[in-house]
């Protein structure tokens, strides 16, 4: 059953289909439609919805709900995500599953409400204190925003970890049809959760281990989990020419612009391929290494000043990896991308 919805609304519909029980949030452009849709749909269905007093309050209510075993959602944009980061560290430390959406806007500081991808380091590399990771999914369409929200809840439960959905102002505000059907939902038993039953009333949800060796063992447990996630959950979509002269790479909305660029390049006789990471942590390093032949140049395009490109360079240390990006709320224009591609190819032929 198709419905034309904004990316932000698709998050909420995905959450409903995934059996999400609780939403806690705070208004911020360009993510507010998520809280609005959640208030409209969660309350009539008997689910929990609270507009919290602040982002910090919202993420800590998420902590309480997640500790209670509920599938729990929150969403915000850069400035709000900064405020949530302390709570996200606690969620990771206490191994609590939940889904957090960052509809990226322009930063630093107040920035503006246009699209950017400059929360990459904050979201992908941690952001909060301590030695933790979170799974980060990067949808490129409204339909994928919907699907990945459903999947995010499964991943969060399976690995007992917070999962980020990293979108941006463009994806959040644009409308595309989504196909809403009953989807298989993989809810798991949570014997560790606090559900006010006699069976659970000796459970303890905490991230503090006073004894140094106990704490080290706990961190090691987290990292064993991260190793398993890295092995099994990294994903990327590879498309375009089979024997490319150049590989373009970008995530989220940027990958859509790159797809258009590849079509234009094809019409002009230049073979280009696209690698679009669908998970940013774990980063799909093996897919990069398996898809880019030696000597083929790579152009990473992002709406930030060289964050995402760092991971591409780590994945492809022997390749020429160039960077192009626009910030401030601007999307890279098609002709600008083409010009950058031509520059890269020229540099290779000069070398």
């Amino acid at each position, binding site marked *: 059953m198709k419905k034309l919805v904004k990316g932000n609304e698709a998050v909420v519909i995905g959450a409903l289909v995934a059996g999400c029980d609780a939403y806690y949030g705070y208004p911020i452009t360009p993510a507010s439609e998520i809280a609005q849709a959640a208030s409209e749909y969660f309350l009539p269905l*008997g689910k929990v919805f*609270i507009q919290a007093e602040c982002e910090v309050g919202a993420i800590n209510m998420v902590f*309480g709900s997640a500790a*209670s075993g509920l599938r729990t959602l929150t969403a915000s944009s850069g400035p709000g995500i900064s405020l949530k980061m302390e709570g996200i560290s606690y969620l990771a430390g206490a191994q609590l599953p939940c889904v957090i959406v960052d509809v990226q806007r322009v930063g630093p500081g107040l920035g503006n409400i246009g699209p950017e991808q400059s929360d990459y380091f904050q979201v992908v590399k941690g952001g909060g204190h301590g030695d933790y990771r979170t799974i980060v999914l990067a949808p490129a369409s409204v339909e994928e925003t919907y699907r990945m929200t459903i999947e995010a809840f499964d991943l969060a439960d399976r690995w007992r970890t917070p999962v980020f959905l990293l979108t941006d102002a463009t994806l959040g505000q644009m409308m595309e*049809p989504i196909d809403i059907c009953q989807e298989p939902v993989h809810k798991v038993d949570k014997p560790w959760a*606090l559900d006010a039953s006699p069976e659970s*009333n000796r459970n303890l949800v905490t991230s*503090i281990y006073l004894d140094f060796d106990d704490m080290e063992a706990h961190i090691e447990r987290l990292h064993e989990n991260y190793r398993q996630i890295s092995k099994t959950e990294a994903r990327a979509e590879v498309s375009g020419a089979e024997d490319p002269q150049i590989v373009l790479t970008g995530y989220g909305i940027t990958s859509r612009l790159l797809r258009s660029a590849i*079509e234009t390049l094809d019409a002009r006789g230049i073979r280009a391929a696209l690698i679009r990471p669908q998970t940013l942590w774990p980063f799909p390093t093996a897919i990069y290494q398996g898809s880019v032949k030696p000597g083929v140049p790579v152009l990473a395009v992002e709406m930030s000043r060289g964050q995402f490109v760092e991971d591409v360079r780590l994945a492809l240390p022997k390749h020429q990896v160039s960077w192009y990006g626009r910030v401030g709320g601007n999307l890279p224009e*098609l002709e600008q991308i083409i010009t950058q591609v031509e520059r890269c190819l020229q540099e290779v032929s000069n070398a």
Partner: protein
Amino acid sequence: MPKVFQKSAAFFETFERKPGMQKTTHYCPGCGHGTLNKIIADQVAELGIQDQTIFVGPVGCGVFIYYYFESAGVSAAHGRASAVATGISRSNPDAIVISYQGDGDLAAIGTSNAIHAANRGENMIVFFVNNNVYGMTGGQLAPTTLLNQKTTTSPFGRSQSNDGFPLRVAEMIAGLDAPTLVARVGVNNPRNIRQASKVIKRGLEIQRDKKGYVFIEVLSQCPTNWKKNPQQACEWIDDVVSKQYPIGVLKDLADERGALERPRKEADFAAVAELLGLDAEAETVDKEMILPYEEMRFKFAGFGGQGVLSLGMMVAKMSMKRHLEVTWLPSYGPEMRGGVANSSVVAGKTPISSPVVDAPNVLVALNRPSLEKFGPLVPDDGLIVYNSSLIDQVPDGLKGKVHALPATDLAAAAGTVKAANVVVLGFIARLTGIFELSDIEAFLRETFKKPALLEVNLKAVSTGWDAAGDI
């Protein structure tokens, strides 16, 4: 009443969660926390609510409260216990939720969360342990530190000019409408302990009966950081502290309040589908759409309020119902507040790459700034429709085929200038051949439920359609 020296049944027999010294607590000798823990445990045991009780621990001296209580426990971040307790309470409507917080935690870093949990009337009981200092971190100044009291960060004594006045939190909470019971008690002498036991029992009964939010401030002695012996510390509460923070019940509405139930329900897919109105959305039109371009790349632009976003949305929805791939991308934010607004729609038979329309093959410009901004981007084979009611001068050098449409005037004649966007819809549908007039009319009937509004829009769309017939 249980024997004074008997260990409460609500405590663990030995404190195995505690690393080392598992027969004693981590509290300093003479500390009020131990006494308060004992009172709470006794009352929890007496009410038989131990198995439903969930303790939310703070950061501060109460951080290890889960060492002692044989109930479910959770550690919150500093100041966040009331927010965490909110999540737990809403998720577990049957739980007895106890948020145990100190004065740094609740009255400084977590004030906002504490006040708002109280104001929502959450089903929870908050113990606010006021010992005038940050105990755990080494006796620093707290919002509750008394005037002239020396601490490790007020070495010359709390000064009103530098640090302000001691904060009376119970009075603040009692000023709110939602809380059911607000009280201040002491645990420094037998009389105060007996009174505290009564108040705490009442607070827990309110929780058992789901009658809302309870706040109990507990004046607690901290001999270590006060640099007093336990006896002096207990006396100092009577002689000095309780003068600033009077003991007593500030508010008790338990007898007049009913249960505040916040039940949760599970919703299956059928319930979700019904709420989303999926059946109505599912109606599709089995008509092959004839597209004049391989991919339609529309730009609809005008003043905010001229309906350019909804015009794009109508085109997008109708395209979707005809099984096309479609994207709709709005301009938004500052641009929408009175400036130039626009929406971009891409529709085609194959998946759409970029939703951004840099070079529209159909441009609708409802005001002059829009025509000047986007007109030059239209390629040779593109169409430009401009609102000749408001635009008297067309820029030179436009490449696409230019059509004048007095959209505002035609809409006004149809009944309202607000329908200018629907006039345009009729016009471009006929011009490009993408929709039949009857298709749009059917769509408008689904969209506009109010008869008067529908009538105006039907008139508007046929006016636009007719105008395109003259070309």
